């Protein structure tokens, strides 16, 4: 049973990898883009100079490098499920996939795994490329950072599943993706420290889960903080996960059922 489910998830991964490799220029372009972003970020950091709010992170470059790497994860989690559904609908393969004994959970997980692998690769290139080129001092526990990243990934994925539910019902146009994605990127502290916002906007940012994740990761990786010092961030992200993960699956099943009832499952 577990072996069969693993094979199913691997099937999606292998398929997506084969498809990505079949577009070699696009593949190379994506790598070049990451390197380009590192250089861009470096010149931004020169422009910004030494800002007192960023000194504990070692400057703007380390601060933004983590923000950008995690934002890529966030965007992957957010878009990968809805894109997977829409791609299967537009290529006409959704019917064939759903006719196999693949569970919805395996379908969603499998469809996203290549995008996550790609995001992990780009995040690693981003973080290690930036730290190697510009001597960023990463001093914290990688394991602790990984644990927080996994918790954040669950949260990102559950938002992505809700977004996919919108695609099943509305086909195009995902208001949740638009608002949460845009506000999270802006208010979550990916590009700027929360402290630069007006006070009322800083209060709003407490509602953005990305904020806790980024705060925690920066504290672990750039300031060398331990779990005892970062547990509030872990707790906040876990609470969001406990609410959103089951809620997202519930909403997705509701949307799937509705699409089947209305006969619009394969429409796009």
């Amino acid at each position, binding site marked *: 049973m577990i072996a069969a489910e693993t094979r199913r998830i691997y099937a999606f991964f292998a398929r997506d990898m084969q498809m990505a490799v079949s577009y070699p220029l696009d593949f190379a372009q994506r790598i070049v883009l990451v390197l380009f972003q590192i250089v861009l970020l470096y010149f931004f950091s020169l422009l910004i100079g030494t800002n007192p709010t960023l000194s504990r992170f070692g400057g703007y470059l380390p601060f933004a490098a983590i923000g950008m790497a995690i934002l890529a994860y966030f965007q992957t989690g957010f878009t990968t499920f809805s894109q997977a559904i829409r791609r299967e609908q537009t290529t006409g393969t959704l019917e064939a996939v759903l006719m196999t004994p693949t569970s919805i959970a395996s379908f969603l997980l499998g469809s996203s795994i290549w995008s996550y692998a790609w995001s992990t690769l780009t995040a690693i290139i981003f973080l290690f490329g930036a730290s190697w080129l510009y001597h960023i001092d990463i001093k914290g526990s990688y394991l602790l950072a990984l644990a927080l990243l996994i918790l954040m990934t669950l949260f990102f994925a559950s938002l992505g599943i809700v977004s996919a539910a919108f695609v099943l019902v509305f086909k195009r146009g995902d208001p949740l993706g638009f608002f949460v994605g845009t506000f999270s990127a802006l208010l979550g502290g990916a590009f700027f420290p929360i402290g630069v916002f007006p006070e009322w906007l800083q209060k709003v940012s407490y509602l953005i889960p990305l904020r806790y994740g980024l705060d925690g990761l920066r504290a672990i990786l750039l300031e060398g903080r331990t779990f005892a010092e970062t547990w509030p961030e872990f707790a906040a992200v876990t609470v969001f996960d406990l609410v959103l993960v089951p809620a997202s699956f519930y909403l997705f099943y509701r949307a799937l059922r509705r699409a089947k009832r209305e*006969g619009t499952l394969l429409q796009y």
Partner: protein
Amino acid sequence: MSAAVQFTQVSKYYSRQIPFPFLRRVSNEKIVGVEDVTLEVFSGEIFGLVGRNGQGKTTLMKCLSGLIEPSSGHIEIFGKPASIDNVATRRLIGLVSSDERSFYWRLTGWQNLLFFSRLHGMNDAEARRRIEPLLERFQLKELAQRRFDGYSAGNKQRLAIIRALLNNPVLLILDEPTRSLDPIAADSLRRLILDWKMDDPQRTAIITSHNLAEIESLCQRIGILSHNRLRECATMEELRLRYPSHDQVRMLVRDEGDQAAFAEARQRVPSLRRRAIDDAMAEYSFAHRDGELNAVLSCFVRKGQEITACQTVRVGLREILEQVDGQD
């Protein structure tokens, strides 16, 4: 005979969607997909479903495969409820749709089949053992490493059938399987379906098609959908008995242009028609009813006209379909 598929009072209505800024609104007006279909398809049978466009053939097939939920009624496949949530029934079904886009065009035929085999839970060795004989049987082995976008329509459809057979299904659902195929490719595909069926007498297939000759030649029983309801469900022979008036008799007669026998025969058989082929020969045709063949023949024989050929052209599914449609 045990039932492979049982439709019980299945209806499917669609809602009309109203374009509305930012929101999706649904009107109360219902569009009928199919209405009150009760049907039993027996195990080991090839069953055909025909009807004009929009009569609900595809809706019924999608309900059967669980991709659409019926508005009312229920469907069972070998005694289990048909639903996409029911993994047990999905293991029993192979679906061949007429949509040739249902593969990943950037992947090869082999990669596509391997992907779907893995989704069926097979490991790579099992998949290889399953795919290779099917590729050989469907004459696609040479093309397996070619990308799908390089396949002809016929080969795409063959690959779709191979995919449907990967899990060794006992029920094959074929929704217009030969729609985009040339006559030779279509004929070859029909032979392959019959061969597949011959391998195991319990295998069951349900086929929808607009090619009525195909349905006549392949299927043991035929269901006719008209006005979104199942109007007929019988063997071709039974349908011919129910709609007997359209059997035609055609005769070639050397009448040398003399129409005296024709005039006499026409008084007794009003449906008799004459079409001159040349100065000497004419083709006569009339609806075949009890006693009328004798009456017509005796007129021509009495006048000394030579009947060079005579055949009964049996009523086809097309004529029956027209009659069924015309009943409402």
